[in-house]
């Protein structure tokens, strides 16, 4: 990999391809594309060493708009394609672009196996809780009761909590961001890039055509502060208007406390430790329905869990190296000959 030693002179524009972006006007994908293009000059990787791999869906058009290497593949398979790519060339910076239908429905199997194997990719899971490209059916993240063309009486499915799924698959970097908080999104993108291993970012993305406002409660000025908590490693969990609320951990159960009535102060609060697997599990499970933010816990954003574990591609290439050290570089004639031969003279 050609890592630049000097300060990068590239601008986000250098990472934009010559293709017209064709998402619907107002789509949350525009913001995500912009944030990705803006951090690219900062990650210290030349654009020829970057590959974007996507599946199928609105978000999966993403690679066409990046002036890097890229592949727009088939539905759900981007993690598997990226696994082969990274095994073949571990030096590449690989970004998997997927959506809630792509990653969690048709590609669920590929996602979990990629996570447990811990390839060093960044996975951007655009979650809009709807099928957009097929014009508006419910997705595996749509809340129960979602009314769509395919569920006129409301969906009866229980939805996935994507991060709980990633945690169950032993993902080594589990995080959440949103299209409408670009600054936070950029920070998480950079953290994901810095993590060696499979870095999953669930990105709440508004589909203004088929599921407008699905995440409004977390993004709108009036409700955002009370319904979200932005967690940072080593910092107490404070949220609400002017930081008037906090979260304490009572055993394994989180509770909201009032920081203004004098009963609690910041020292009583749950301090986020992203390396604590068990507490991360609690955080990931803070998943109350957005319609009830006043009674439930706020929806957390940030990096919930991070773990250093060897990557699949490193272990694979270590084995290749060890095999060469032990047996010598492959000798084709010896292989063809085998151990039992006879001669006919």
């Amino acid at each position, binding site marked *: 990999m050609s890592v630049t030693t000097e300060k990068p002179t590239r601008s986000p524009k250098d990472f934009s391809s010559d293709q017209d972006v064709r998402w619907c006007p107002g789509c949350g994908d525009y913001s995500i594309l912009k944030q990705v293009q803006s951090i690219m000059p900062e990650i210290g990787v030349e654009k020829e060493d970057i590959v974007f791999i996507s599946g199928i869906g609105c978000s999966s058009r993403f690679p066409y708009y990046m*002036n890097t290497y*890229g592949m*727009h593949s088939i539905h759900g398979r981007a993690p598997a394609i990226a*696994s*082969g790519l990274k095994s073949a060339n571990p030096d590449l910076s690989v970004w998997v672009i997927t959506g809630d239908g792509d990653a969690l429905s048709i590609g669920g199997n590929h996602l979990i196996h990629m996570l447990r194997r811990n390839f060093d990719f960044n996975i951007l899971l655009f979650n809009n809780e709807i099928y957009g490209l097929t014009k508006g059916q419910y997705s595996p993240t749509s809340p129960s009761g979602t009314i769509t063309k395919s569920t006129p009486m409301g969906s009866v499915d229980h939805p996935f909590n994507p991060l709980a799924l990633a945690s169950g698959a032993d993902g080594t970097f589990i995080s959440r961001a949103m299209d409408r908080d670009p600054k936070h999104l950029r920070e998480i993108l950079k953290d994901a890039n810095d993590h060696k291993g499979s870095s999953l970012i669930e990105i709440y993305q508004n589909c203004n055509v088929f599921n407008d406002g699905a995440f409004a409660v977390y993004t709108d000025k009036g409700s955002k502060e009370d319904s979200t908590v932005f967690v940072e490693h080593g910092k107490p969990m404070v949220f609400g208007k002017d930081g008037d609320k906090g979260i304490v951990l009572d055993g394994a159960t989180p509770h909201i406390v009032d920081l203004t009535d004098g009963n609690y102060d910041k020292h009583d609060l749950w301090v986020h430790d992203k390396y604590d697997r068990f507490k991360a599990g609690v955080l990931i499970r803070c998943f109350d329905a957005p319609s009830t933010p006043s009674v439930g816990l706020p929806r957390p954003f940030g990096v919930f869990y991070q773990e250093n574990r060897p990557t699949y591609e490193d272990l694979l290439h270590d084995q290749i190296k060890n095999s060469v050290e032990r047996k010598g570089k*492959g000798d084709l*004639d010896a292989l063809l*000959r085998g151990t039992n031969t006879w001669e006919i003279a």
Partner: protein
Amino acid sequence: MEETKPKTKGKIQESKKDVAILFAGDSGDGIQLTGSQFSTTSALFGNDISTFPNFPAEIRAPQGTIAGVSGFQLNFGSIEIYTPGDLCDVLVVMNAAALKANLDKLKTSGTIIANTSGFDKRNLKLAGYLDARSPLEDNSLGKYRVIEIDVTKMTREALKETSLGIKEKDRSKNMFVLGFLYWMYNRNLGPTQKFLEEKFAKTPEFIESNLAVLKAGYNFGDTSETFTTRFEVKPAPMPKGVYRNIMGNQALAMGLIAASQKADVPLFYGSYPITPASDILHELSRHKNFDVRSFQAADEIAAITSSIGASFAGNIGVTASSGPGIALKGEALGLACILELPLVVVNVQRGGPSTGLPTKTEQADLLQAIYGRNGEAPIPVIAAASPKDCFQMAFEAVRIAVEHMTPVFLLSDGYIANGAEPWRFPSSKDIGKITAPFLKKAGEEPFLPYERDEKGVRKWAIPGIKGLEHRIGGLEKQDKTGNVSYDPENHQKMVDIRAEKIANIANFIPEQEIDQGKVGAKLLILTWGSVYGAAKTAVKDMLLKDLDVAHIHLKYLFPFPKNLEGLLRKFDKVLVPELNKGQLVKLIRSEFLIDAIPFSKVKGLPFSSTEVQEEALKHLES
């Protein structure tokens, strides 16, 4: 090494040109090992051989039942051998079920070697013999020569001084049978001794015990007064050279490695375990020092898509499976086709549809390979003819995939995958080169990923090269630029371009040759895949009888060799024996309007040469 062939008093009484032995017993009896040991020993002795393992789908079906019978047929001779033999001369049965399941495969006046302790009341009942009446005692085997040996008792006797338990002792009884057959056919114990020493290097007591039983079996033949007939099968007059024994899947794996070396491009092998293709994964995983990246994927789809990802990154992506797994790969094959990346997909065919007959052979996936995709998605299809031919065809599959930037189907089947034969292996310097169309650096002009050379082949531009950044995908692409295009004229053009590129491969494969017989014969037998051996043997025999017959064997099925049509038109009749309901015959008819005659068999078993010959005779007479 000590003297491995004990001194013997039995005289060689009879010389034979070829002998077929069928070993049969419970799937836990070590039948496959016994068979493969006799094969290796005979091959090392210089016989030509062909083998056919036939085992149940269950790993350990209920003991003593017909369902649990495992078989291994071996044909060895002082003449050239192309099949494991139609009927066998010797049937070795470890129990009653093995006899019941296989008696119809024994020649009249053939020899049965029966382990009498496998014919007790319980075994007879399990095998379904009426009133548990033993066929060894009711004169029903009158037309055969029966040698009864209490193998279990003799094995225990040979091991009485050891501290092994009964179960462990009984596990060696296959060695007794093997030793006895080594005596009968005057074979050397050396190769098996060497094998045991390697296999049990960590448990020397098992080397000792197995060797003791092997020798006991040999000595039993030598000292027992009952058996005075021994046979001699002299070495076969094979072309000069150094040989080894090779199984189909093993040869296929080696062909892939050789191709990777000759292309100087690393091999990525993404595969999900499936019978009968898994042995390719096992073999390749052992050779990481050839820079083989073997990847046991989480499913069949991940197996092929990971391989596509590796090809995009500049490795030779290869995946293998069998029928049901290939069905799952269909969508990704279309992707590889439209991306125009090299990819090899191996189908080791088995009986279908659905899960079908996992351990039995069939050739019913030919049309799936050629047509089984959505849209116009032409993919070259080639097929191996025999175990050793898997090496050559695997190499060819990689050559075509890389040099023409296309996915390639390589068809094998359960029969050749598990079968073995002697192989005069090539020297690496005699294996051709493969030239990968890499674009190593950017030029002055902007890079156009779908610009083509005179063969219609695009460049292989892999991530990591400055100035060649580009996006590829499953959407229809504009000619040259590769940008997404929904333009009707462009789609027509791209479909035509891709079809023409594949058709043009006919200019880069060998012209079709006649295997045996003369151009203009009354009857041509046209085969593909594993039917080769049976047809070869049948036609050889018919030519000796001065019959007007010839044999052509196809290895390139799509596109066909460009002289094929002209060649086929020179024969009065074309008979196509295949292990399906008539698939190649459909292609021949639709491509050339030649009225080829189907000859179909779908029993999960290969053709015998007799079956081919009998069918041929019908068409020669009419």
